[in-house]
């Protein structure tokens, strides 16, 4: 188990909050929405932590953090770059939700050749005008298959679920911030 190191006091002797960053790779943002479902508890959370890069803060580059939460699988070159950046900067990296844990819905394209998918979407798709497969250097290239995040960088914790419920995320954050062992009541980890 990876533990957070004690750095709650900064150089000038002030208490420093742990920093959290979040990112969505190839996912639907549902895990982030579920995170927001902690509702008013977010006020307690901001007492406990400082947010770094996240859709919540709109900070674009991740800085040194204690915890990184990753939603979504790895589907393109930019996903790889963001994920690696998080790994470089986060002491604890967490795969959040089905797509991060095992590729999820986007990985359904793994049954097909990449070319088939692109032709279906950009050449033969209904209502497509001026059909062509995008090749602009601004657009990240797709990997031939969608991968779970732990196949690209080392992951410390996995939170399954589609999405993991707000209570699951809340329980996890509280336990890890308190330095406790991560455990869940059964109701949070059964899915049928």
């Amino acid at each position, binding site marked *: 188990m990876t533990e957070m190191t004690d750095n709650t006091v900064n150089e000038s002797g002030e208490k420093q909050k742990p920093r959290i960053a979040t990112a969505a790779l190839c996912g639907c943002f549902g895990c982030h929405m579920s995170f927001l479902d902690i509702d008013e508890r977010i006020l307690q959370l901001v007492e406990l932590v400082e947010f770094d890069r996240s859709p919540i803060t709109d900070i674009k580059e991740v800085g040194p953090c204690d915890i990184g939460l990753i939603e979504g699988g790895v589907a393109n070159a930019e996903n790889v770059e963001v994920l690696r950046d998080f790994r470089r900067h986060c002491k604890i990296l967490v795969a959040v939700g089905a797509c991060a844990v095992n590729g999820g819905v986007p990985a359904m394209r793994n049954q097909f050749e990449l070319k088939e998918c*692109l032709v279906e979407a950009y050449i033969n798709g209904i209502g497509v005008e001026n059909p062509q497969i995008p090749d602009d250097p601004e657009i990240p290239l797709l990997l031939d298959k969608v991968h779970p995040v*732990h196949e*690209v960088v080392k992951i410390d914790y996995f939170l399954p679920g589609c999405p993991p419920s707000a209570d699951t995320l809340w329980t996890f954050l509280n336990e890890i911030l308190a330095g406790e062992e991560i455990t869940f009541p059964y109701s949070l980890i059964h899915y049928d």
Partner: protein
Amino acid sequence: MKNIENFVSELLSATENAPELLLQDLCAIQQRYSYIPENAVEILASKLNLPAVQIYGVIDFYSFLHRKARGTFDILFSDNITDRMLGNQSLIDSLCEKLDIEPGTPRIDGRVTVSVTSCTGICDQGPALLVNGMTVSGLNEERISKIAELIEEDTPLSDWPASFFVVEDNIQRSDILLDDKIINGSAIESLQKNGSDALLEILEQSGLRGRGGAGFKTALKWRFCRDTDSDQHYVVCNADEGEPGTFKDRILLNSYADNVCEGMTLCAGIIGAKKGYIYLRGEYRYLLDDLEQTLQKRRDANLLGKNICGHEGFDFDIDIHLGAGAYICGEESSLIESLEGKRGIPRKRPPFPVTNGFCNQPTVVNNVETFVAAAKIAVFGADWYGSVGSSESTGTKLLSISGDCARPGIYEYPFGVSIEQVLEDCGAHDTQAVQVAGAAGSTVPAQEFHRSIAFEDLSTGGSFMIFNQQRDMLEMVQNFCHFFCHESCGFCTPCRVGGALMKDLVDKVMVGHATHNDLKEMENIGQIMQQNSHCGLGVTAPKPVLDTLEKFPQIYMQRLANRGFEPAFDLDAALEESRQITGRDDAEAHIEYEPLLNTAGQDES
């Protein structure tokens, strides 16, 4: 097309539109056309009153059934580790090159497909292949060249050299089971003379336990089944000898078929069954004609049929059902599902087949060897059998010996024989390990060769594969992991997903990209599979990995990458297809390798 419709209609009228014969119908269509055409499925669906998707579900479940034509010659190389040790891979390459095809893809002219299949049970006379379901043994370059010629000349299988199709019994050591002959009908006479209670008593005293490996007491099983009240009882002979490296049932079905039938008839007499089935693995199709003849001879001699041996009301007959390349169907509840014409998904147990088996009726399912032993015990008595073997395991066991030894083949030993003794007898030298009980069994290193073959020590269905010091044991592990991944029925997640993850991780070790964390992950996945799988397949599938991690750690350690983490795949190569499609080659179109992507500021190991 008209042709296909006629064929299927005739087939169905011959089988009286029985839905439980669906798999048998599909096997016949596959054999005739090298695939199951869509219109055949339509006819089956309407005549058998089944949804078409259910029929496609069955087709997709079994490896030997296909939706696309395989061609005039459908060739499947046996790809067990023992075939690999005998050099099957260069022979596959050679045949593909001669025929100018890729493995697994039918040739454009519809002449031939070449691919691989799980162990075909010819390990002592391999490498082997199946051509249109018929076994060709003893492959070498010369035979492969000839096969390529025959295919190019479109020579019908019936005109191929008969020598290609010879499979010897290859009995190297025999004991009481193979030596002491009984006269046909004598076990049935013994039953009539002694009565079923006394016969069960004799079986119980003999200590006979099931020969498939699990070792359940045969008398107890038969008694449970007999005592379950029902109009119908069934006897099923499990001849789905799919465990890699096992081939002892092959010789029993070839040269002791009468004894097998005799044992089944004896069982029928005791439990009150009118109907029995031999579930013959598809790989043993070459035995089918002879077995049918044996059954017919027994019918002619009144050893099967109505009023057997003149005993009023003793009616029993046996049908043969073919499997179609599914290892899981060796598990008795999957076998029953398959007998009923369905996908071979294991049932939940309990209830057990003895109370709720074939068509939900009480059913005895026993191994081929068990029936032979039971028939002989009925004639020669409990003492004859109990006089050999060990206290917990009476009698003898047939071992199928293959791999690195001078004399592979069938060896019958009294239970309790040591591995050392077996190795000496079959001429194995410099042995590194023995895989006992097949891919699902145990990897036994040299320091444990004093251990014995017995239910109380090393229990086995009969597979015994030998690896000498020159062999790389990880190749065995990899072969078995691919095997289990392919053979998982897909019903439960621990086995379906766990098996695939395990296979990928072993492949990662093989190419030198795995780290210590990957080994920990393999142990973790293995435990999850063992604790949570629905049936024995998932429970045993991680065993080759877990056994060798414990007993042969060096085969993993010597290949580990000296880093905390390695990606599971080549990131830059994963962009190649995109680069091809878009024509891009700029800096952003590549991913650089980053060797030290650990946790921030920490050096993880």
